[in-house]
């Protein structure tokens, strides 16, 4: 058996294995969403029993988008006296403070706070900012929103109601949508990807295993849990994934509530997207390395399924995609010759069709997403956008390894924002120094 044969065999088995898992997860996702769509997600609490909620919004030079976010947070249909908004102005150099102060004056009777940090205590990332915000907040329930979010009015209420209603739920997460899907072809791809991810991976895992990963925004969590785990891990670039694993280990589950929706701004330029996704991938690799030891620990419970799942994604899927691409390119160039027989081309074509139909199913569960344009985009993104994932993870791996070797401190990489018009199109990019 030649090396090319072995690699091909590995790729084929792995890709089909992962595909079967994805199809199964999609079935679960569809059933979960269907069940959720039967109701509006509300579990009304007796009047006066709504818990105090602290909404933490970490912001580092987010003035460009923060105004819209804060106004959306103030517009929640949650009892106004039962929630506070804490903007953690994390060493910003822009006009965040002035902006918040202006809103404070506009809504003097609302609990809107701004907590500014300096270079000494702040500016080291989202986890640190959340820990600072948590140290001053008073709510029994902590809700987290990113600075670029515009949640729907009922989102917080639905999240809190569902959290309170089920004591086994450590956190309840909502759905995030792409606010600027029309900004570029990239944001259209991201829109489809995020919808598919939440339906297939989040809802699918939630349906079968009651496992979901906290998405970093639009979620609420019990204060007691944060206190017990000692806050967010400041070393984690993806603090959301990291905290999810700790929740599992404590015996809680994370509930997905697709009716609680927030709209967020996604990167509209490839460069920005690559930075963001590399950060996520590095964060997930960190979490995987940190939690891999629990994979074979029965006491870790269901968390082992998620560590295995992440292992499959970051090891099996990555290596098999890289290998299949190398074999494909080598075959075209006539460098690599594979003797492996077995799978017919028809099967591969059918697999591509399954992928496309699978993606279309996730879009069929959303309003205004199931159309011919989406079908075209899904087909194109299979051969373009999906390939970028390999580059992102390879880059993340490289940076993770070199950081270890050269003992570099991992730095938070802020996603660059831009001004949108009402239809979600780009108006201007945000300059890191605060200008436009």
């Amino acid at each position, binding site marked *: *058996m030649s090396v090319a*044969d*072995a690699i091909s*065999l590995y790729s*084929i*088995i792995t890709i*089909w294995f992962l595909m*079967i898992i994805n*199809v199964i997860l*999609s*079935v679960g996702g*569809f059933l979960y*969403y*269907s069940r959720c*769509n039967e109701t*509006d997600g509300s579990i009304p609490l007796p009047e006066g029993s709504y818990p105090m909620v602290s909404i933490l919004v970490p912001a580092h030079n987010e003035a460009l988008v923060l105004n819209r976010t804060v106004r959306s947070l103030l517009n929640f249909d949650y009892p106004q006296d039962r929630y506070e908004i804490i903007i953690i102005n994390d060493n910003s150099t822009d006009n965040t403070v002035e902006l918040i102060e202006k809103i404070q004056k506009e809504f003097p009777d609302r609990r809107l706070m701004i907590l500014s940090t300096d270079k000494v205590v702040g500016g080291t990332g989202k986890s640190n900012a959340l820990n600072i915000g948590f140290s001053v907040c008073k709510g029994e329930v902590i809700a987290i929103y990113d600075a670029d979010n515009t949640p729907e009015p009922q989102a917080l209420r639905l999240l809190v109601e569902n959290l309170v209603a089920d004591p086994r739920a450590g956190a309840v997460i909502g759905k995030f949508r792409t606010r600027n899907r029309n900004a570029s072809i990239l944001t259209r791809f991201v829109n489809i990807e995020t919808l598919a991810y939440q339906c297939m991976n989040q809802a699918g895992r939630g349906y079968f295993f009651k496992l979901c990963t906290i998405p970093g925004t639009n979620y609420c969590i019990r204060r007691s849990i944060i206190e017990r785990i000692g806050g967010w891990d400041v070393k984690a670039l993806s603090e959301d994934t990291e905290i999810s694993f700790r929740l599992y280990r404590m015996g809680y589950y994370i509930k997905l509530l697709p009716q609680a929706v927030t709209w967020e701004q996604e990167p509209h330029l490839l460069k920005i997207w690559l930075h963001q996704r590399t950060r996520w991938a590095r964060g997930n690799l960190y979490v995987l390395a940190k939690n891999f030891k629990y994979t074979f620990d029965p006491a870790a419970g269901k968390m082992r399924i998620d560590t295995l799942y992440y292992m499959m994604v970051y090891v099996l899927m990555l290596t098999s995609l890289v290998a299949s691409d190398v074999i494909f390119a080598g075959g075209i160039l006539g460098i690599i010759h594979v003797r*492996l*027989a*077995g*799978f*017919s081309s*028809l*099967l591969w074509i*059918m*697999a591509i*069709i*399954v992928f496309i*139909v*699978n993606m*279309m*199913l996730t879009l*069929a*569960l*959303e*309003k205004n997403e*199931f159309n011919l344009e989406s079908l075209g985009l899904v087909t194109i993104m299979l051969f373009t956008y999906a390939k970028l994932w390999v580059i992102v993870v390879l880059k993340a791996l490289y940076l993770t390894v070199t950081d270890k070797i050269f003992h570099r401190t991992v730095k938070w990489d802020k996603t660059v924002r831009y001004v949108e018009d009402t239809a979600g199109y780009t108006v201007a990019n945000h300059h890191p120094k605060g200008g436009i």
Partner: protein
Amino acid sequence: MRFFFVKKQKVKCSTMFKAAGLLLSGCIVCSLLCPKIPAAAAEGAPKAQILMVVPDETDEEQQESEENIAELLVRLGYSVTFSTAAQAEVSAYHNVLLYGLKEDAVRKTAGSLLKSQRLFLAGCELPADSEMFGNVQKTKISAATAEYKLEKVSRESVTLQMYLFGISPEYTSGVLKAEGETMPLVFGWKNVRCVSFASYISSMEKNVLIRELQLWLEQEKSSVVSSASAYLVLDYVYPFADPDTLNQMVQWLVSENISFAVSVAPIYTHSDFPAMSRFCEILKYAQENGAAIILCAPVIQGDTTEEQIQSHLDSAFQNYCDQGVYPVALEVPESWIFNGTYLSTMKHFTTVLYYEDAADIQMSGLQSTKDLISSRISLIGPAIMMQSGDAENPSCCNRAFYIDSTLSLKQQKILAGQAMDTATTEGDLRQTKQCVQMGSRKLVWDTETMQINDGAVSLQYEPAEDTGKYDYKRDVFYRATADLQQQNRFLTVFVMISLVFFICAIVLARRQMHRRFFYFEEKKNETEEKGRK
């Protein structure tokens, strides 16, 4: 009164088509590639024993006939080169064969011949008035019947030209009958032969030609036409064919005392597998009982170098030898025998059998058939299909009756019986000395003993015990590949079920979305109405 029989021509060929046609016929090389220099006269070109002069323009039937004539000459052991009438330097050749020429071309070519030179006319129009044929008068008729030995053939829709010869032929053979008149099918004088057929595609026409060609060529030697051998060859013998049928056929041939050969497919890998051993058991049994083993050449697809072919044949030969089966001859497609690339491969065998194949005959690397003839390879061509009951079918050259071993036992026996009925002399490759040089092995069969690299080899068959235990040494790759093939069905079903599910789910999801939309719209309207009140 004398008659001459010429088939109606359908010549409408362009000059370009002529060139392609001649190349396809496998006959013309230099004469067409270098039109100003006749091939045979080109400096340094090997000179063949026979010059064949062909028309400038030919139709498909004539091209095929040219191919067949060339093949028959090679089977008789003569080299041949080609030229058109305009370019032919007939004085340089002792034997000149004219095919399909019109009256003027015949007059020009034959007129320049010396008396010592010998001329064969196949399907040519005789000139009305020439020194060689005297005063010839011709009359057209419309149908004729030809008889040659016991064979008969009728021709319709032809133009018959009845000739009155000024000089009576010294030699005649066969009869042409047309409208109550008769004339010889073959006629000639001392150094001249004429065959009336214009086409040499059917078995009878080829039979007539090959016999008359041999008589004409052997005339100078004053030898009697020898009766060549007919070989019975079990063809398409593969390890994965039904071993029982093969075994029964072999046993029947042995019991009937029929000499036969077995043409085996080349095996390159897994020659130590139990299936191969079982297959070779039958071959060894046949070998012990007098059968000659023939190694069939690989089927060439795409560009293959001489070294690759040689390497594959070496491998196949060695694999059979390792199993105690010793091929003494090679079987190749007909297109190989005119191709220089394959000639060096064929030279490793004393005897080469060939079969008709669909591939175009190419003359690449050969200035004429002389290279092939000088290689001293004993060529055995396929038997021309005989008319039933033709006991005196001409047998001028060795020929092979190929019997498809994939047919039923009954059919094989019938074919073998028919072949033996038509064969005057039963051939046996083991009755002639054979020599094979493949790789580092030199196999010599001297009609009694076999030696490989000067070491005696026993052909005695000893049944081997099949223990039923064999380590196939199948690694993960082979197991997985086999498993993948088995998984194909599972995955196809899985994919189909997934597709059906997803499509149904999409329909349900869309219906649910519609329902949800209207439900919430209604609810919203109700709330608004309550608010107004």
